[in-house]
């Protein structure tokens, strides 16, 4: 704990300052994104054949691969926003207030990256709007993909609204200290603001948060996304009611990991030890541990059911899990993280920020690999496996790998830009840390209940 007092100057520091490191990071991220864009242009020019994908069945390949695996991964990461916001606003876990806005921004960034993957993996992205919107009234009744697009859009819009509303408080009070050249942006953001609206906005965002917490975990990453796969009866690795909860745990673990890494990056860059405190990381780690436990527990369900006395097709799919490195290694990674976090619970001195970052990175890698495995293994072991060319061959091509680094670059760029426009830590958080609002501080050792998770 630092002896510094959190101040407005602290949270304004990113906006006014441009450092060398910033430009270098901007360049690297820009390069990564640029490389991917070049790859994507080439793909648009030559066709999807430039990827490592192929038709499943006699076609000898898999038809959904890294693009979809990464899509799922980014949507999972994007759930961090609502989890943190809900924790703060609905459950009163004020401890996390300093990182709530970062998490919400991560939602927007993550969903943008996910949206990119949707476009990239389509054969005719130019028709996305006309073909989908044009027939929406019909397809919304039966296509899981359309549900998917609907809920993601809703999540994005709701989060953006939430952010826009909560930013008003900050911008108006900090207006004088914000750069002039961004005045048009601030004008728009604070349109029609009066002090009276504060209480109203508080209520509004409370309800928004409630709406999102019901929708996003339960219907997005615990709903329409797993349903893309889980409703198809001829893929034994997919066809199960457990996928809803399973995917949700993946979202939760990825989301917390993303928030840990993001928070640490900003804390380090702008000397925010006294704002984004160690406390926060400890807390986040505990939650990460809990979600990792749930994740592994649900995998255990699948492994047990899939191997006890399974039908032949399920047996094959489960056998693969026990032997393929893309499943085994991620499970071990998550298990390792869980073990460490458990140890940290027993012996709090084991905690360090570095270890937290490592844990978060490991979890992110694990979830990406496992999710990609989930997708491609479906096509490897369908019920109708008679084809000699099934299981098909697949290795992500260079362009697909570039999409991964490219979207990471995109997200980094997003934060580099946004952090120059608006404060990424809520003014409320600063006020709260200074005891200005008369809130009671939550105890540092709260019980690890997780009401928003329906396992």
């Amino acid at each position, binding site marked *: 704990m630092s002896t510094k007092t959190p101040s407005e100057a602290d949270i304004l520091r990113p906006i006014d300052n441009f450092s060398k490191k910033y430009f270098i990071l901007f360049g690297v991220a820009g390069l990564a994104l640029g490389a991917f864009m070049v790859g994507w242009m080439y793909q648009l020019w030559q066709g999807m054949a430039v*990827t490592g994908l192929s038709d499943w069945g006699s076609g000898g390949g898999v038809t959904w691969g890294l693009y979809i695996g990464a899509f799922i991964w980014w949507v999972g990461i994007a759930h961090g926003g609502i989890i943190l916001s809900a924790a703060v606003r609905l459950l009163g876990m004020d401890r996390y207030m300093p990182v709530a806005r970062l998490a919400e921004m991560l939602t927007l960034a993550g969903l943008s990256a996910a949206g990119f993957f949707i476009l990239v993996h389509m054969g005719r992205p130019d028709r996305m709007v006309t073909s989908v919107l044009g027939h929406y009234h019909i397809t919304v009744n039966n296509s899981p993909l359309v549900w998917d697009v609907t809920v993601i859009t809703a999540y994005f819009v709701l989060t953006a609204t939430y952010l826009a509303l909560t930013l008003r408080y900050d911008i108006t009070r900090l207006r004088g200290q914000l750069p002039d050249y961004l005045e048009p942006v601030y004008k728009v953001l604070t349109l029609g603001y009066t002090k009276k609206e504060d209480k109203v906005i508080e209520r509004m965002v409370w309800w928004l948060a409630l709406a999102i917490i019901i929708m996003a975990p339960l219907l997005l990453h615990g709903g329409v996304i797993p349903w893309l796969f889980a409703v198809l009866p*001829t893929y034994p690795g997919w066809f199960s009611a457990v996928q809803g909860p399973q995917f949700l745990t993946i979202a939760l673990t990825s989301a917390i990991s993303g928030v840990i890494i993001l928070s640490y990056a900003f804390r380090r860059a702008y000397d925010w030890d006294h704002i984004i405190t160690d406390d926060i990381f400890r807390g986040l780690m505990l939650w990460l541990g809990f979600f990792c436990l749930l994740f592994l527990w649900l995998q255990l369900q699948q492994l047990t059911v899939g191997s006890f006395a399974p039908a032949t097709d399920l047996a094959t799919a489960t056998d693969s899990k026990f032997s393929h490195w893309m499943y085994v290694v991620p499970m071990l990674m998550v298990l390792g993280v869980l073990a460490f976090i458990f140890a940290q619970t027993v012996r709090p001195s084991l905690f360090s920020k570095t270890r937290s970052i490592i844990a978060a990175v490991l979890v992110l890698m694990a979830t990406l690999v496992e999710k990609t495995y989930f997708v491609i293994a479906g096509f490897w072991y369908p019920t109708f496996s008679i084809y000699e060319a099934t299981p098909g061959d*697949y290795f992500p091509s260079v362009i697909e790998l570039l999409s991964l680094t490219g979207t990471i670059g995109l997200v980094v760029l997003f934060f580099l830009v946004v952090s120059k426009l608006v404060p990424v830590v809520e003014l409320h958080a600063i006020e709260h840390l200074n005891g200005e609002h008369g809130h009671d501080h939550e105890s540092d050792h709260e019980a690890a209940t997780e009401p928003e998770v329906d396992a």
Partner: protein
Amino acid sequence: MSTDDDSFHPLGEEWEGELETMLDDTEYDSELGMQMAQDAMAVTKGELSEAAFHEKYHDDVMAEFGEDQRPTQEAYEQAQSDETGTVGRMLDKFDGDGEESRRETMKKMGAAGAAAVGLSAWGAMDDGQPAHVATAEDGDDGGDEGTQLGMVLDLERCDGCLSCVTACQEENQLDQGVNWMYILDYEDSTPGGRNRLIRPCQHCSDAPCEKVCPTTARHTRDKDGLVLTDYDVCIGCRYCQVACPYGVNYFQWEEPDVSTDEIRDIYSDMDGDHMTDDRDRWVDSRAPRGVMSKCTMCPTRQDGHMGEDYVGTTACEEACPPDAIQFGDMNDPDSAPQQYLSNVVQSRARMQVDGQSPNMEEVQESYDFLDEEIELLDMEFMPGPDRDEIEAALFIQGEIDEDDLSLDEEELRDVLLDILDDEFEDELDEEELSEDDLESIVDDLLDGVEDGDDIERALAAMDTVIADSEDAIQDVVDRYESREITPAEVEEALEIVDGAEPEDVVISEGGITDEATAQQVLEAYAGDDASTFKLLEDIGTNPNVTYIGNEPGPEAEQVDGPVAYDDVGLTDNRKEVLDEETVGDFGVSL
């Protein structure tokens, strides 16, 4: 079916006149009858609705018969209740019923109209139509359930020749590895039987591919139940390919090998370009880049764009040498696939025996010859030496004279030389005799010389020709009367199971077929009745392909077939083709 005169009746003015005379013999108003008949015809053509027909004649029918029991009453009442007064609705009443089967509508016509006119017209329509065109008409009409095109695939008849795959590839200008039609041999844990699968798209009634499509690009065509992809709408998300349990979808990962202009050129002779169907949607032939494709069951053929002959056919069905594919309306019990299915043994026997020898006619002729009812040269069927040789031999023997000879001198000489070539083969080989020697023997024969060793041998050779012919004919009869099942007996059996009296059909009681054995004969010839199944039926897709033969078990694995895809210019594994375009192919697989 149209005639040149003014009659509304398909059979023409004279027939119409006869019918009118028949009506005159009844106690009822002939003119009313003829008018109703004319309008009944219009209803069957869809030019007049049942409701309008009912309304038009209701008062007259009541006046004439005291009651109106016509089945069109229902349509009339329905129309009455539907009417809400909008102009459009009112106008619609006078349009045709559209989907209603011609046959169904005519069946419904009562009293004076249909009985005299409709049924006879129907009879005239059906006579002499080849099976697939009748199917086509069935396909165009609907039963009450509507048309549902599909296939019956006889796996026992498929020989893995890949003609169907090739034909489909050519019809639709598909890229290498895009195997809309696919044949695979497989090994399975259950022994016995041929293990081969014909795998087109199943055109499911509850197609999961259609259900998951986010754009309605994948849809089912109302008029005939075909599941098609609209290439102008598809966004290439490939979810249909994911959802399909059978793996029938092929995505166009790269620019197709054949351009749409080239396709238009290839099909420039037809009505249309083999790409757009009757609804003006681009659903046929290979897909453009970035869009999904699969077996279409040839919608542009069904729409008549290639001509009437092609309606009710598919490229694969046409190309299949052993006729393993039956395509048609699965909802119509009279369609080719349903007929085939209704008695598989018979259907198979029927196909297998087609063109085989000796058939019934030939066996009958053989009997007739042996019974001395006909002469050797009267026979069309020549199981032994051919007609020319027989004629030449008989001529030399003096059995026939020059007028009866159909050969001219040069032909005669050639035939005789051929016979002598065989007779004196050894001597020719050992060069004891030359071709010139044979020529002079021929001269001698023609001059009627009878002396000399060579001549005697030559004359004996003539005898042998005749003797061989007679032996061959006897042999046919012997085979017929033996335990062997000749094609003739299969034909007899087919007629008997179709309901003919054995004594009317059987050529001779020496044969093995009678009522009791007919079915056994067919089974012995064409194979036992085999089980039918649908692929992955328990998944609930309701596929419209019914298979006859062995169902692959869950552990079935594909093995090489008798013909390799490479051998016929096709590619089995698409990825081999696509890998050439992959950027940064690491050469390994996960």
